[in-house]
């Protein structure tokens, strides 16, 4: 297989397979959650659960108070800069928007590539900082399983290979691009079966927690 054939495969059948597994897998996961259902609350309500649930989906992105922020400052800073960096790279890079346009049928403005490049570096540095914490902090190390390291690598590789492709580092560009797409496909395939699902399910978690708290009239 030469680099052209490889690129053709990852852009065609490879992408289709990955997208199919990602979409069907996530639909199954969401179904698995919602099918479990939940008991109706019969207690006299004190507030509106729906508005509190919707609000919590957004407010939970921020720490609840100053002291909690201080206690987990490393995770907040590294977590924020990683997620912002990653989302900028995924959704605001011209070739990514072009790919998404071919799938969704519409597009949106991109950021200049050198700016996205900066965000890539921020995301990679933050991700390395989070790995360092995972390896050294007693609590995070204690909680971590092999899956946590696997999804770390699966998230880091597309960033790294994307960065290398853009800067034409060490390997021929067409091979780098092919490998970059392949690593992204690997991430998509892992997605529904690992903790990566949090990207979607956190909306459900925040909704339930916010709603249950709102019905009691308590903070969430």
């Amino acid at each position, binding site marked *: 297989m030469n680099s052209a054939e490889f690129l053709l495969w990852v852009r065609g059948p490879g992408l289709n397979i990955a997208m199919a597994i990602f979409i069907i897998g996530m639909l199954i*996961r969401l179904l698995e959650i919602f099918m479990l259902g939940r*008991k109706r609350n019969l*207690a006299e309500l004190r507030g509106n659960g729906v508005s509190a649930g919707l609000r919590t989906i957004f407010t939970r992105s921020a720490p609840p108070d100053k*002291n909690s922020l201080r206690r987990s400052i490393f995770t907040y800073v590294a977590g924020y800069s990683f997620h912002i960096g990653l989302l900028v790279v995924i959704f605001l890079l011209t070739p990514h928007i072009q790919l998404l346009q071919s799938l969704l049928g519409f597009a949106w403005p991109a950021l200049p590539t050198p700016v996205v490049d900066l965000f890539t570096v921020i995301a990679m540095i933050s991700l390395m900082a989070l790995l360092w914490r995972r390896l050294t902090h007693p*609590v995070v190390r204690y909680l971590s399983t092999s899956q946590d390291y696997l999804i770390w690598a699966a998230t880091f590789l597309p960033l790294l290979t994307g960065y290398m492709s853009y800067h034409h580092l060490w390997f021929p560009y067409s091979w780098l691009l092919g490998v970059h797409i392949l690593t992204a496909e690997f991430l998509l395939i892992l997605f529904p079966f690992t*903790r990566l699902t949090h990207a979607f*399910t956190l909306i459900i*978690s925040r909704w339930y927690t916010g709603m*249950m708290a709102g019905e009691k009239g308590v*903070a969430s």
Partner: protein
Amino acid sequence: MSKATLQRGVQILKEQIDAPTAAYFSSCVHCGMCAEACLFYTETGDPAYTPINKLEPMRRLWEQEYTLVGRIKKLIGLSQPITDEELGEWSDLVYHACSLCGRCSMVCPVGNDISYMIRNIREGISAAGHAPEGLIGATTRAVEIGSPMGITLHALQTQARNIKESSGLEIPFDQEGVDYLVLLSSMEVINFPEYLEAIARIFKQAGKSWTISSEAFEATNSGIQIGTSDIARELVSRVVEAAEKFKVNTVISPECGHAYTAIRWDGPNLMGRRFPFRVKHIIEVLDELRAEGLLKVEGIEDSCMTFHDPCQLVRKGGVIEQPRNLLNMVATNFVEMEDHGAMNWCCGAGGGVSAIEEAADIRLKAFNRKKSQLDQLQVDTLVTACANCRIQLEEGLEENDMEIPVVGLTEMLADHLVEDQP
């Protein structure tokens, strides 16, 4: 209750897993932030006490039973089934080292309500026969005698007689058609008899009629703490029956945290029906009386005071402003602890921890969080609104040679009551 076995424990645990639980386990990324919100972790530094870790057997069961990949892994023998030893080990984590205070649920960045799940994992662990002896004893006494501390009606009646003799106040039993059905906690009956006299005086002044039920005077619910819904339901049903028999509008939960949660929020769901009466915490009732101008006080305390928020009131009950409104009626020098209200720190003994003898060490270690909060303030008096917090605070303060009196808010208000002119 059926015989406790691993099989039954796993079955019950499986039944606890609902859509929120599945969403929570799908969302956790092992970031460790919940540890920083948990006083059992912050005061010991033991990573095993990280809140989400207290749910590991439940998480595995969810994965094995309710996810495609987990089921495939189980089919080909790749998953680890839950063992009896494991549940025994986790019993220490979920009963000794968790007061169901709910602080972890406030900080989780993906929004997981961790304490909701810990309440539920207790159902499985207790069904498997691994609930702590102390809680089993309390629960047995609650079912058989009517009170987890073994307080009999006779003891309460004696106390009522004493109040009558010393103050002339009548403590009404089994009256129909009154405003309030008043519940008590055993802790109060044994340790703080002042509470009963205090509400008798306050309601007399406010012109409210009330009663105690001789069949259901206990507000606490060991069934909730140990995590056995059948028993929790039985205990709640006694109160519901009494409230319906006496046709009261309102049932008043005493100065206790979990008792309020048990009747106010869990009660109707345990019984499977809505209540024809309202449930309020005594502090809510007092604040309503204040707003209506029915609570008349005189005299001002100028000593420096702070208020310890019972977790179940602030994070599960939404009673935050009321105690402050009431305190400000009689105190000029009221100061707040650094983390107060919705983000308060637990006393260390809630959720049944105080009933577990083996948890005495960790409970007092956990108190160090409160100690450091208090060290920052240097107050003369510590006010609270939960008898269980109060006992723990008194014990913790004594252990640390801190001489700060702990006062119940209701009694403090009663001390300032304007005496009716005859």
